[in-house]
């Protein structure tokens, strides 16, 4: 199809707008001076060394990995059966139940963090880490319900019924017929939930305490008190990991799996 020149120019401008800031960050990470400059005058990797030397970064990075992984796994364990029941049964009020499961998306992240801090941590004296995990569960669950749900909607359940009629138990059919057919949906849900939990800030703002702080929150805190290329270097490391993840997803599920 013939392309409109004006539209092409417009799209190029939009992509420059989206990518240029990330390129600028990448360049500034390699500057030597402690002030962020663009373009850089001398090349150095000392800020990358600083990233790995900062203890608060290391500790919070591990916390974020733990929280994101645990929240995602729990959301999958709880969400897959729920999505299956919602897709499969003729339950009354299915639509309502689905909106209940998706309701965390309607509550702003900062509000989730705020009410969980007040109720779970201050009133019930539950450890902050558990509160933080509960908050991140609210981030991850809707991804599982939505993405696994849409892959169940595309699944032809007559295959499952065939398994039943051939003598397979209901549980057996679920694990040996249904689950293997929705693995790509589960993988996509895992990636999306994990990445969004890892990157989430608002939910974690209130839910921090001694020794419990997520990586993005630590990063944000650092920016508010320091202005040096350390954050640029962190950004480059994180972006490199993101690129790696996206390549893996593209090779296995297709990059469109992340567009949900």
């Amino acid at each position, binding site marked *: 199809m013939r392309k409109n020149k004006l*539209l092409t120019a417009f799209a190029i401008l939009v992509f420059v707008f*989206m990518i240029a800031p990330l390129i600028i960050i990448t360049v500034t990470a390699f500057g030597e001076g402690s002030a962020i400059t663009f373009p850089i005058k001398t090349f150095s990797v000392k800020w990358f060394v600083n990233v790995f030397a900062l203890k608060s970064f290391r500790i919070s990075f591990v916390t974020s990995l733990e929280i994101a992984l645990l929240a995602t796994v729990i959301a999958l364990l709880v969400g897959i059966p729920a999505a299956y029941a919602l897709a499969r*049964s003729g339950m009354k009020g299915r639509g309502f139940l689905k909106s209940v499961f998706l309701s965390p998306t309607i509550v*702003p992240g*900062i509000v989730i963090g705020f009410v969980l801090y007040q109720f779970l941590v201050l009133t019930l004296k539950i450890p902050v880490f558990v509160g933080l995990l509960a908050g991140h569960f609210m981030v991850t669950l809707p991804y599982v319900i939505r993405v696994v749900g849409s892959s169940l909607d595309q699944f032809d359940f007559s295959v499952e019924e065939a398994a039943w009629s051939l003598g397979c138990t209901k549980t057996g059919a679920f694990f040996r017929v249904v689950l293997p057919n929705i693995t790509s949906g589960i993988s996509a849900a895992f990636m999306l939930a994990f*990445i969004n939990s890892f990157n989430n800030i608002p939910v974690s703002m209130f839910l921090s305490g001694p020794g419990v702080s997520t990586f993005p929150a630590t990063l*944000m805190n650092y*920016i508010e008190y320091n202005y040096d290329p350390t954050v640029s270097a962190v950004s480059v490391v*994180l972006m490199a990991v993101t690129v790696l993840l996206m390549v893996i997803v593209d090779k296995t599920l297709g990059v469109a799996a992340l567009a949900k």
Partner: protein
Amino acid sequence: MKKSSAFIMVVPGLVILAICLFLPLLRVLVPTFYTGDYLFSAYADFFKDSYYLKIFVRTVKVAVITTIVCMAAGVPTAYFISRCDKKWRGILLSVSIFPMMTNSVIRSFAWINILGSNGIVNRFLMMSGLVDKPVKLLYTDFAIIIGSVYLFLPLMIVTVAGVMENIGDDMMEAALSLGADRLKAFMKVIFPMSLPGIIVGGILVFTGTLTAYTTPQLLGGNKNMVLATFIYQRAMSVGDWNGAAVISLIMIVVTLAVIKGFNALAARLDKRGGDHA
């Protein structure tokens, strides 16, 4: 499937949601109805206070402008992507998804480097002699808006491109062969057909901007608060937990209203599109 087994499958999720979301929400938000002289007086007070009102208006203003800009920039770009061949579509989609997977702290930090008093824009302006001293760009509403557009434009593009991909080339060709020019064909055929995607994108961008914390905190600073940063400030710096709860409920209500509003708009536009056809 038996009712009892379906029930067992949804119960664990519902229990966690009840204990870790609904109950805390009720326990924290319901008491705000009864604080003050009369029912809901805390809410009346909120909208009477000019400082609070200013923050509310700023939040809505930022969300409205961000949504409009994201639609204006995102819809044509999504259309462009959807008309590329398969290889380019994959590349451009990846380039759009990449920022979405990148932390919002990083994406806001990028704009601190660009808009700051010693940032790229100001150094360019000073070098070219257009201004003598740095222009204040960072810690303004403008900075929050540009940061929010930067944050949510990819979401808009990816959402709309997903819908436009399913509209075949033959639609456009049919309109062209019937005498419409390209712009008219886009406005009369492609645009109405992709409206569901644009509405979903609009909801995501609007509610996302309305409730965003990171970008307004880093680019707006303490003088240009929005509702999300205001909740944190009320609770943590001032210790006004009731005030923070009031703002929380206001945010939830506005979010719900916006979703309902967008959907109603979609239904109306859909009907009108039908009348023309």
